[in-house]
Structure formats: C-alpha cells, structure tokens
C-alpha cells in the first residue's frame, strides 16, 4: 500500500527538512537580526535595551536575595547574573518554541520552505539575545573579578549543547502545540515554575551542604531537575568553578534522547503542520 502511506512521512524527508533549512542560513540569519531590530525600531537605544533590562533584573534580584539569604553580594550577584542569562536563553527557546509554528502560520501557508527554517531563526535570535546579555557579564567581570581558568573555554561547547537542545525542544513542542492548543499555556506556566525550581536565585551547593539534614535532602531533589544541569554546564566555567562531569553526562543523554524523539515526531507529523496551523 504505497499510496495509503504518503512517502512524505519518512525519516529521509525529516532529515531533508533539517538539512534544507540549514542550507537557507542566509535567510534565517537575516530574519533573526531583523527580529531584533524590529523589536527596538524607533527606540533610541535599540538592542541595548536587551542588555539594560538584563542588568537591572539581575542586579535587583541579586541584591534582594543576597539580603534574604544573607550571602555576600560579591559571591551571590555573579551567580544570579550568569544563571539569569542562561535561563533567559532556555526559557526563550521553550516559550517561543511552543508557538514557533503558530506564530509563523502565514509564512508556512504561503511560502514553501522547510519547517526547520522557523526553528533555526528562533534559536539564532535567542543566541543574539544571549550575546547581548553577555555584555552584562563582561561588565560584571570588572566589578567582581572571577578566578577564570583556561577551562572557561568549555562555555563554548556548553552553549552549543544548549542551542542544540533549544532546537529540538522548539521542533517537538512546536508541533505538539500546533495540534493541541491547550499545551501552549501549560508550557508557558511550566517554564515559569521551573525558574523557581532551578538554582538561579538560590545557591544549590549552599543548601546541599546545609547542617540541617532536611534542607540538604530537599535540595538534593534539584538533581532531578534537568534544567539544573543545563544551567550548570554554562555557569560553572563562566564563574571559574570546577566542571562536574555529572552535569555534562546528563545534558548529553538528554540531547541524544531528545533528538531521537524529535526525529520520530518529525517523521510522523512534519507534513501535517501546514494543515494544522
């Protein structure tokens, strides 16, 4: 029954979509920049606002929570700031990824292009935001110098893994929300909740080594939070801390499993997305 099963639902077609999308780098590269310029059109400072708002948020949260937890600001502020920068990328990929196809309905229905183009554009845009935010980090290095080692270079592969995961999450969640619109608000709420469950405005090490065994046991639960490992592989090198292989291992496994899942989703539902949007 070759006819009953359209040949479009093959793994080869899914791979071809990813490949042809990648070949259109000049398209999504251009659109990603365009998105950022568009957002700050007619404003005097333009994309500098990305940097400013990140600085204000991180400093405000840093000052507040260092007071609440009674931790030295010189230790706590870099922790919050870097955590927040990484989190902005993660939450951006998930939140925007969940509506990546819905938001591009017009393009999908009117121009034949690979679905992956929209996802590459999104991840690229988030990467540009990330780079804008890194300026805040560089400024912070002047105020609170960190003891950076040569291993800080690990931030590059770490971020690459982050982006790779952002892409599969956007593809898979994007396809699912296109079909089931209720998933969209669920995703947005879960992302918000995960912010509090991930050690960004609180310090994980501090709590795990707490003299109170109940607190330590509770804190150890955070290990089950996948986001902790993603934040850690990027944050640790940037703060000159030692790398923990456990975090890398978890991230690598999630990357592999996530992409395997995504290929299955793409094979089965890629050709349906233009019908569903």
């Amino acid at each position, binding site marked *: 029954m070759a006819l009953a099963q*359209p040949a479009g639902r093959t793994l080869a077609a899914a791979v071809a979509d990813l490949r042809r999308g990648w070949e259109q780098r000049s398209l999504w590269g251009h659109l990603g920049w365009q998105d950022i310029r568009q957002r700050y059109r007619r404003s005097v400072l333009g994309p500098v606002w990305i940097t400013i708002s990140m600085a204000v948020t991180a400093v405000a949260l840093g000052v507040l929570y260092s007071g609440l937890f009674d931790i030295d600001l010189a230790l706590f502020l870099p922790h919050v700031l870097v955590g927040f920068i990484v989190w902005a990328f993660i939450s951006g990929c998930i939140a925007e990824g969940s509506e990546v196809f819905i938001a591009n309905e017009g393009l999908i229905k009117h*121009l*034949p292009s690979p679905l992956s183009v929209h996802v590459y554009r999104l991840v690229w845009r988030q990467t540009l935001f990330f780079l804008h935010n890194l300026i805040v980090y560089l400024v912070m290095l002047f105020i609170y110098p960190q003891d950076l080692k040569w291993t800080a270079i690990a931030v590059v592969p770490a971020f690459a893994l982050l982006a790779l995961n952002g892409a599969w999450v956007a593809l898979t969640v994007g396809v699912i929300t296109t079909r089931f619109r209720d998933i969209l608000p669920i995703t947005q709420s879960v992302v918000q909740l995960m912010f509090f469950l991930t050690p960004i405005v609180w310090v994980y090490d501090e709590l795990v080594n707490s003299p109170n065994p109940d607190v330590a046991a509770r804190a150890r639960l955070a290990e089950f939070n996948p986001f902790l490992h993603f934040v850690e592989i990027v944050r640790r090198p940037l703060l000159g801390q030692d790398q923990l292989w456990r975090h890398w291992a978890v991230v690598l496994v999630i990357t592999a499993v996530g992409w395997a899942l995504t290929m299955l989703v793409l094979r089965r539902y890629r050709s349906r997305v233009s019908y569903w949007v």
Partner: protein
Amino acid sequence: MNVSNDNPASTSGPVSIATKDACVDFPIFDAKSRSLKKTVMGLVGGNIDSGSKVPVIEALRDVTVNLEHGARVGLVGHNGAGKSTLLRLLSGIYEPTRGIAEIRGRVAPVFDLGVGMDPEISGLENIMIRGLFLGMTRKQMQERVDDIADFTELGDFLHMPLRTYSTGMRVRLALGVVTSIDPEILLLDEGIGAVDAAFLEKSKQRLVQLVERSGLLVFASHSDEFLRELCDTAIWMEHGRIRQQGELDEVLRAYKGLPA
C-alpha cells in the same frame, strides 16, 4: 512524495509537476477537538460517540495533473472550488493526504502579498527578504536589486516603509522579485489583478519570456482577460475536483456555460 523544490541547486533535469489521485483533507479542529482534554478523556472513558471524530473538509479529491516545461495553465472555478488549495498542493506547501505529488523545479509562489513582507521596513529590504525566502542568497539578491527596482518603477518609494504602499505597489514589488530570480515554477493567485494595465502588459512579457526560458506557470484568476493574456491551457476546478482540463478557450466556454 519526492519534493525537490526550493533547492537552488536543483536546476538540473526537466521541470515538471505531476500529481496522481492527490487528495487534500483538512481536519477541522474546533476548541473541543483541538484540546488535549477531549483526547485524554476519550482514552480513559473509551469511545463515547462517533461525534468526537474530527470533521474533515475534503478540499481536493483525486487530482491528477501532469505539467511539463513551458506549460501556461489557467485555473478557473467558483470561490471555494479549490483553486488556492490546488496552487498550494502544486507548490509543495500541502503534501497530499492521499495520492502522490511530485514537484521538480524551484517554486516561486505569489499568493498572499502581505505574507513574508514586513510593513515596517523599506521596500528594498523586503525585496531582499522575499528573495531569500525563495531560495536566493544575499549576494544573488544584491546583484538583482537594481534590476528589480527598475522594473517596479517605484523609485524613491523603495526607501519608504512598506506600510505606505498601495496594493498595486506591493504587487509590483512581488512580481519584480519573482520574475527576476528565474524560478522554474511560477504560481500566481488572483491578487495580481491589482496592477494597472500598462504594468500588467510589461509583466506579461516578462512572465511569458520567463516561462519559455525556464519553466511553467499556473495562474488562478476570475478574469478571462488576464487568463487569455498569460495562459494557453486551463483547469476548471469544481468542488475540489478537476471538472475539465484542456485548451483555454474550450475550458472557458464550458465554464461559462456557452456552447462549444
């Protein structure tokens, strides 16, 4: 389905579109059937009634077309007959739910003129983005931008934001782009009727040359005049099926209910 479209490298081999018994069925998800709740509850409680099945609109039924290099096909039919859906099937946007569609060649569709255009940026920048969407590189577009600017006759307006353009001016822009990038398969929806007669005459020459040089054209329109200008054969769509295909005059006469 063997989609080799919108790949800039795929200029080798003959240009063609072939569909065989292709069907396009749209599931209509209202809030109820689109929600997960209904699906989950359905799993738990067993199949409650057949009413929980998603209604389907059969937009195209058993469409078989064979278009080769040089074909200039007009699409006629009432509103809702499936002309636009057929164009999207031929462009590869919709892969057939049943049947086969094989598209060989680089596709350039001109459907909705607002889509893929950003009203806040200038006409020139929109030319660039449109071209990138159709598979061009930045460099290729930079080489062509002067030519497109000349063709559109928009002059200084090209530096103005697109939101200041009239519909006809947008059509000029869109036509300028698609005719300059040497597409192999050109698909036009009726919107291009918005340009004035002089410009239409100018684009007509360019379109005909384009089709002769490199590919095929499918054009949906309600205007006999435009169809006669651009096409030599026609497909008459009715209720999602092909009612008739053949010589343009013959199909138009049948469509209008005139004696042959």
